[in-house]
């Protein structure tokens, strides 16, 4: 019984960490532009796919990973520069539609440049499960959770202490005032897209040994990552983590104890319930504008 619970918990945390890693990208872009970047899932895909294809082309794993992240960063930068920046000042929904267009475009490009097949990436440190109190844990899950912890800690420092992180937030809250204090709002936007793309790619690489990778892998992960970012409270890296874990654990526990057929439905019900109690997510900034 308790080892079963532990197993569900391990599953929930692994999956939750996956969602959290994807959700972090949403938070970063939101933090500089208040935009939801629906192409975030595609960076996860690009990270995994690029690594796989670079490795197939003979690159050693570390090099393949570095190049894949670099590729994602470049694409993220380009997305910001050529698609988002020219549309600045447009209503937020319009920009969201641009990101949806971008995700369709990137997926189409991935199918052309690479392929539509399923690819597998070897686990970083073997696939012999570790036994924890009767429950089994894959080493790759440790990589995923560890990667998430490191990234989120770095982001937390970035946004709450580094001035450039603050500048990014300021750009989102009030671009006019940001310009007036000498912040390059353009630079912040591009930086955030590049950063989010890079983190998305790292997420994609960390989870590829678990999820496998293919041109469409970003769709569902993007959706779940978005949910994680929202439930946790947009813009707060800790929020994305909390949100990811809430969604992941809710799914695992529902599948384990209630109904696997309705596990996604129950997870979304929990998300709704959280939002009804805390309308700006678990760690979201409370309404700070007043009349």
């Amino acid at each position: 019984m308790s080892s079963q619970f532990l197993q569900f918990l391990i599953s929930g945390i692994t999956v939750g960490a996956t969602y959290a890693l994807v959700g972090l990208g949403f938070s970063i872009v939101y933090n500089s532009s208040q935009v939801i970047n629906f192409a975030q899932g595609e960076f996860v895909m690009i990270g995994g796919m690029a690594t796989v294809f670079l490795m197939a082309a003979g690159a050693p794993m570390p090099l393949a990973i570095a190049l894949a992240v670099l590729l994602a960063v470049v694409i993220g930068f380009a997305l910001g520069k050529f698609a988002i920046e020219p549309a600045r000042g447009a209503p937020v929904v319009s920009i969201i539609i641009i990101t949806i267009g971008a995700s369709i475009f990137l997926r189409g490009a991935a199918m052309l440049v690479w392929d539509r097949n399923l690819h597998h990436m070897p686990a970083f440190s073997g696939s012999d499960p570790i036994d924890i109190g009767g429950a089994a844990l894959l080493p790759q899950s440790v990589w995923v959770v560890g990667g998430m912890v490191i990234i989120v800690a770095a982001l937390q420092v970035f946004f709450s202490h580094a001035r450039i992180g603050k500048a990014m937030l300021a750009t989102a809250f009030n671009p006019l005032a940001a310009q007036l204090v000498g912040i390059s709002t353009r630079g912040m936007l591009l930086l955030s897209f590049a950063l989010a793309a890079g983190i998305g790619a790292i997420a994609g690489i960390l989870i590829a040994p678990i999820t496998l990778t293919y041109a469409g892998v970003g769709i569902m992960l993007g959706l779940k990552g978005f949910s994680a970012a929202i439930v946790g409270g947009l813009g707060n890296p800790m929020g994305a983590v909390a949100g990811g874990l809430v969604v992941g654990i809710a799914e695992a526990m529902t599948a384990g104890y209630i109904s696997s057929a309705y596990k996604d439905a129950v997870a979304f019900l929990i998300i709704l319930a959280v939002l009804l109690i805390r309308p700006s997510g678990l760690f979201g900034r409370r309404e700070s504008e007043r009349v």
Partner: protein
Amino acid sequence: QAQEPIKLGVFLSATGGAAFLGDPEKKTIELYVEKINADGGLLGRQVQLTIYDDGTKAKEALTFVKRLIDQDKVDLIIGGTTTGNTMAVINEVEQAGLPFISLAGASVIIDPVKKWVFKTPHTDRLAVQKIFTDMKARGLTKIGLLAGSGGFDKSCAGNARALMESEGVEILADETHGAGDTDMTPQLTKIKNTEGVQAFLYCGFGAPTSIVAKNYKQLGITIPHYQTHGSASVRFIKGADGAAEGVRLPAAALLVVDSLPDSHPQKAIASAYKAAYEDGYKEPISTFGGHAYDALFLAAEAIKRAGSLDKEAVRSEIEKTNGFIGVDGIFTMSPDDHLGLDNDSFVMVEVHDGGWKLQE
């Protein structure tokens, strides 16, 4: 003098949820239509291929079928990667009255029989039957079932439930997972902890097949592990990263063509297909492409026999298919069987040393 080409209409799910199936289907059709034309076409006429990608959406499938019929005025339609997309267009095809060969699994497509509708893949019902037979032969009658949420997955699981009584198999645990799920350990843990389960069956295709195998090994489950022909691709084995060893599944002979005895009737045709496909696309075959291969040549044979493109003539020639040796098996159709395959056309294979091993 230049003859009017034969117009072949195809709609497939080359993108979207069923892209794993639709992509090799599309590649197969493109490859072989080109070959047919290079060999002088059919009835001395070239085959003109019109192919659309429905993105795994039923609404799109219907629109493209209307387009094939009304706009492109094709003589024959092959397509419908998924059951839903096939079912969505059946009405239209029946009304227009032109031969249609589906590439989707479920038995509802041809049961009850519809005048113009045929299909080539084994029904998942056949697959489940084959699996149950194999289980019983090993003395396994109490099973745990896990299925995905897609059309194929659910239909397979549904068949398992429908057949369990007549086949004397008992489903003790019945679980599902969602689209895009990346971890099935909770479901598998439940099955593992269900008292009395002797074997495990997974219904699904794509990435989850490998994930299930991995989680299965991770949890240290040792009871026999069965999957379906949805996993009949080396990508399943590779993706599982060693965890697929020992997984059994029913598949078309194509999958183990190299280990078939030379006397096997399908050996020649299957090896030829395998060679052509792998040569043409530099990627391993899957059995899904085989469905498209069979559909294309069933149609080609029927057109040859009919000697014309008269729709009714072609249709009835398809229906009269007898002993056609395809990749999926040997087809013998009749007015009340628009599939024409039986259980024997499946072989049981087991993953062994990272490859397929034919079971007796």
